[in-house]
């Protein structure tokens, strides 16, 4: 950000991902502008989101794996205690919301909660630090134009990440629905409710209506999961960016901005935990619905 840039540029810069993909003209490369990123189409990767989400996920796995390796039934040490506290909390949530028996649900819930929490947590890192570091690294070592090194550090503000999670959850829902109810049972669930009739002709009319209703409600589950998380985090990130803009508008605005940022960050601690928890709880509930066979 050496030369004067406008607020619009600053915001746009912060909201653009570092994209690597196959550009029609430049071939496989990093996109220099948002326009180029768009032109790359579907087969492109947001390197920053993906890298941060993988790193954070690996941090989660590393911490929990270490605790699991050293886990004893004796007096737990500090880290093990912390990990066990989370595991116990997840276990309680799963027991509370999930009525079936499936050893996979609790690990799914734990992964979702811890991973999303860590990804959301990146929102609390001062918003310019990591992007500027990336610009410096990119400009100095990789010979890139610093202006075009986009770097978003909060993976959950990228809809690809939230949709990626939601789609995986959706696939699990489909898998368990078919596994528990059979293909017939599952289609029956989609077509024979909420309207049903004794008269075959009437029933035939109801089937498409039912299917429409049930299909929308089925599809709305992953979509709402993904958009809720994305919307909350994206809005939070945007507010951080807007607050950060105040630092450039004189001392008075700067101090005011500092107070706002502190307040928003403290409030955000609640939001990031809550969003991780909601995503996890809804996943458990959806999987529970997928397991229920005979309550209709």
């Amino acid at each position, binding site marked *: 950000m050496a030369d004067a840039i406008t607020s619009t540029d600053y915001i746009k810069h912060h909201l653009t991902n570092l994209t690597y993909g196959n550009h029609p003209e430049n071939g496989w490369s990093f996109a220099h502008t948002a326009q180029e990123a768009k032109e790359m189409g579907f*087969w492109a990767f947001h390197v920053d989101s993906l890298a941060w989400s993988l790193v954070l996920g690996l941090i989660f*796995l590393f911490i929990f794996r270490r605790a699991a390796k050293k886990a004893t039934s004796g007096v737990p040490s500090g880290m093990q205690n912390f990990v066990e506290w989370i595991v116990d909390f997840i276990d309680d949530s799963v027991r509370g919301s999930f009525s079936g028996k499936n050893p996979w649900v609790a690990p799914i819930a734990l992964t979702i909660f811890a991973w999303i929490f860590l990804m959301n947590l990146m929102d609390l890192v001062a918003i310019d630090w990591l992007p500027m570091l990336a610009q410096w690294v990119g400009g100095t070592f990789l010979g890139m134009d610093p202006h075009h090194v986009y770097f978003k550090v909060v993976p959950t503000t990228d809809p690809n990440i939230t949709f990626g999670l939601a789609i995986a959850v959706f696939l699990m829902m489909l898998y368990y629905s078919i596994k528990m109810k059979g293909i017939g049972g599952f289609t029956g669930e989609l077509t024979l409710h909420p309207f049903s009739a004794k008269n075959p002709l009437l029933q035939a009319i109801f089937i498409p209506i039912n299917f429409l209703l049930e299909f929308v409600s089925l599809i709305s589950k992953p979509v709402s999961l993904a958009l809720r998380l994305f919307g909350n985090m994206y809005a939070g990130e945007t507010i951080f960016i807007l607050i950060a803009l105040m630092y450039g508008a004189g001392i008075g605005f700067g101090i005011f901005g500092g107070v706002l940022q502190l307040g928003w960050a403290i409030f955000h601690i609640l939001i990031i935990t809550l969003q991780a928890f909601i995503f996890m709880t809804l996943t458990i509930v959806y999987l529970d619905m997928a397991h229920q066979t005979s309550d209709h």
Partner: protein
Amino acid sequence: MNINATLIGQSIAFILFVWFTKKYVWSFLMAAMEERKQKIADGLAAAERGKHEQELAEKRAAEVIAEAKTQAQGIISKAEKRASEIVEEAKGNARTEGERLLAAANAEIEQEVNRAKEDLRGQVVSLAVAGAGRVLKKELDSKAHNDMLKDLVSQI
């Protein structure tokens, strides 16, 4: 903000992470926690049992102490009885011994008296013979008179 292949990568990563968590994290932690729960439950049960046993032991101790007290009481009274018996016996022994000694002494005294009487008798005989000899101033047939005198002496 474009939807692109990132979401596929994220989905794959998510499924791999879930698999890892299930295989290498969750079961270990749950096993440890379950085991600890069991240990704590066992410990509490053992503590409860220990308490119960202590109560029993205290009760038994009290019983043993009470029994010991009554036994001690019995032993003491028996000992006292025995002591008074011994004293009585000793008194009886002493009495009979005293009587025996008294009798022995009496017998000895009597013996001494008899011996003195015998001596005295002998001396009286010789005195009488000497006295008679002097009175008669005559030689007497000592053999004939001796028998007579002896007979006389035995009558003293």
